[in-house]
């Protein structure tokens, strides 16, 4: 069993597909990204396949991403060790034989929906786990805006924030939909072994002005169905569907979380809409609004993490609506237990 340190990665599941970057960003050049437990090097082979290797030369402490890509091989920029696409060192400059142990970790990769998913855990298990599907990111009937935010907060804090929709009212009151202003309607939470789904149906309320304008329908009211999905530590999605009388306007929020360690993460956020899809002005407006929203989420999460870092975990009182977030904690605890990490209940997520 592993002991958990404050900035260790032991409390972060690794047997999980994480979306490290977009397909567009990976090409015939060396790209460095941080992920659970360390640096990852990404590049595309001449055949177009994505390769993910540990971004650190086996010889000395130097990132392979600071080297050169020659065909499908990477040469270390410091010492000249050359690695193939499986991470195996194939030549060293100073002797004919490659030393034993001269290899770097090679991680399974998949591309789906314009994202590059990487498996940083036990490699043999990767093919037994599905890569999530996010069709609205690339389907023709949708337009998507997005960004990336590094957050000095643990991944579980982020998921617990996503799991509590009512927090939007307090974190970002200006953009919170009017639907959230009243008492929240009944919350339904549906669980499986590995997932949590929550949903609420909000009674008819005014559409946010920006949405009414984009829909070209003037002041309008609509019934909103909100659904949130915890798919894995790597992914939380939200659906906001408004039936405004002249049709349904759909929004999909895709939150791709990559933990670096227990207290730092990266969030790739995407907001996809199936209305005003050809209106670049609408896209710019969405990008500005939600860029601001996620900046506020970042600030709130970092504040929460700072409390944990300074004063440690404390007793928590739960309300009934926390059941979704608590089930997420249970699932993550189970994942860690399967990976051989034992945590006391009260220390998880802190």
């Amino acid at each position: 069993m592993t002991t958990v340190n404050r900035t260790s990665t032991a409390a972060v599941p690794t047997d999980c597909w994480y979306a490290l970057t977009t397909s567009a960003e990976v090409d015939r050049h060396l790209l460095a990204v941080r992920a659970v437990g360390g640096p990852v090097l990404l590049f595309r082979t001449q055949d177009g396949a994505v390769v993910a290797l540990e971004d650190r030369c086996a010889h000395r402490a130097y990132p392979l991403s600071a080297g050169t890509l020659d065909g499908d091989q990477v040469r270390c920029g410091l010492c000249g060790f050359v690695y193939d696409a499986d991470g195996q060192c194939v030549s060293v400059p100073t002797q004919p034989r490659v030393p034993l142990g001269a290899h770097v970790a090679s991680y399974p990769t998949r591309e789906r929906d314009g994202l590059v998913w990487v498996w940083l855990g036990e490699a043999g298990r990767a093919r037994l786990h599905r890569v999530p599907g996010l069709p609205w990111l690339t389907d023709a009937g949708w337009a998507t805006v997005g960004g990336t935010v590094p957050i000095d907060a643990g991944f579980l804090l982020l998921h617990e924030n996503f799991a509590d929709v009512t927090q939007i009212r307090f974190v970002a009151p200006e953009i919170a939909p009017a639907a959230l202003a009243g008492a929240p309607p009944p919350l339904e939470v549906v669980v499986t072994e590995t997932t949590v789904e929550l949903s609420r149906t909000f009674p008819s309320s005014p559409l946010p002005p920006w949405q009414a304008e984009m829909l070209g329908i003037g002041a309008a009211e609509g019934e909103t169905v909100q659904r949130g999905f915890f798919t894995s530590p790597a992914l939380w999605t939200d659906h906001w569907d408004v039936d405004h009388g002249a049709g349904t306007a759909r929004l999909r929020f895709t939150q791709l979380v990559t933990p670096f360690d227990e207290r730092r993460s990266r969030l790739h956020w995407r907001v996809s809409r199936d209305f005003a899809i050809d209106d670049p002005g609408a896209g710019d407006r969405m990008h500005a609004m939600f860029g601001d929203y996620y900046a506020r989420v970042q600030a709130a999460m970092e504040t929460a993490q700072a409390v944990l870092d300074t004063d440690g975990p404390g007793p928590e009182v739960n309300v009934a609506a926390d059941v979704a977030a608590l089930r997420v904690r249970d699932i993550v605890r189970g994942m860690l237990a399967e990976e051989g990490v034992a945590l006391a209940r009260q220390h998880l997520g802190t």
Partner: protein
Amino acid sequence: MTETRTTLREHEAELVVASVTAVADGVRELRLADVSGSGLPPWTPGAHVDLVLGELVRQYSLCGDPTDATSYTVAVLREPESRGGSVFVHEQLAEGAKVTVRGPRNHFPLVSADSYRFVAGGIGITPLLPMIAEADASGADWHLTYGGRTRGSMAYTDHLAGYGERVTFAPADEVGLLDLATILASPGPRTLVYCCGPEPLLAAIESVCEQGWPSDALHLERFAAKVSDAPVDAERAFELVLAGSGVTLQVPPDKSVFDMIQDAGISVLGSCHEGICGTCEQAVLEGEVDHRDSVLNESEQAANDAMMVCVSRCLSDRLVLDL
């Protein structure tokens, strides 16, 4: 202000029996397909689902491919002396039949290890099949000893024979009872034992693993409630506090904690109501639990921080749950 309710439930779907295959004497494999198009929830080895079989709900381990989002596979042994679940499956669930499936859930997960000893008795092979696939894929060292009445009664022997020497078939009519002492003779430091099968096998393996194996090395799943020899306290009343809900109740001797929680209008998950499936597990904050389930092992019970509320009760006067 209107009262807002939170309800918690498990995923439920109506699936269609896509195929029925006899995979051994008295064993039928059913492939249950999603027809809604929304796909089925993912699961990991050791998971099971509820099948709603008329008036009964029964749990069956998932034994197919975890990456298949379109169907779930279970294998059911016909047991004439059972309460009728398996008979229902064999007689009523033909191809094309609809069946309500709840879950999946998993109280028998495969923990990461360098080395595994799998021991299966009869239909207990079903949860171990996907575990073996995962252990093999991860490059772990593993061995399966698979016992049953006769070779013909043992399902998936052809598939398992493909693993060569890692699998030992031990039908009782050929080799007698499994020699567990030999099979589990050399406890390794990072070796886990996974076992599923009839109660006599499970009791025997618990006994063997008490000698020389670390207390957390053995993982097993019971398909039937353990019959306890230990004297059970005459049912007593006690106070039940649901800390998160701010509710205090008096539990009478003739009502279960689960029933009290439901009657109080608080969402709680449950399935078998016999203390085997683990669905109703709740965190315990205070009180001495009177464990009557077949899920928690000795050290888990001694930790006194969790209980199966459908069967377990309280030895002290006050039980506080984090609910």
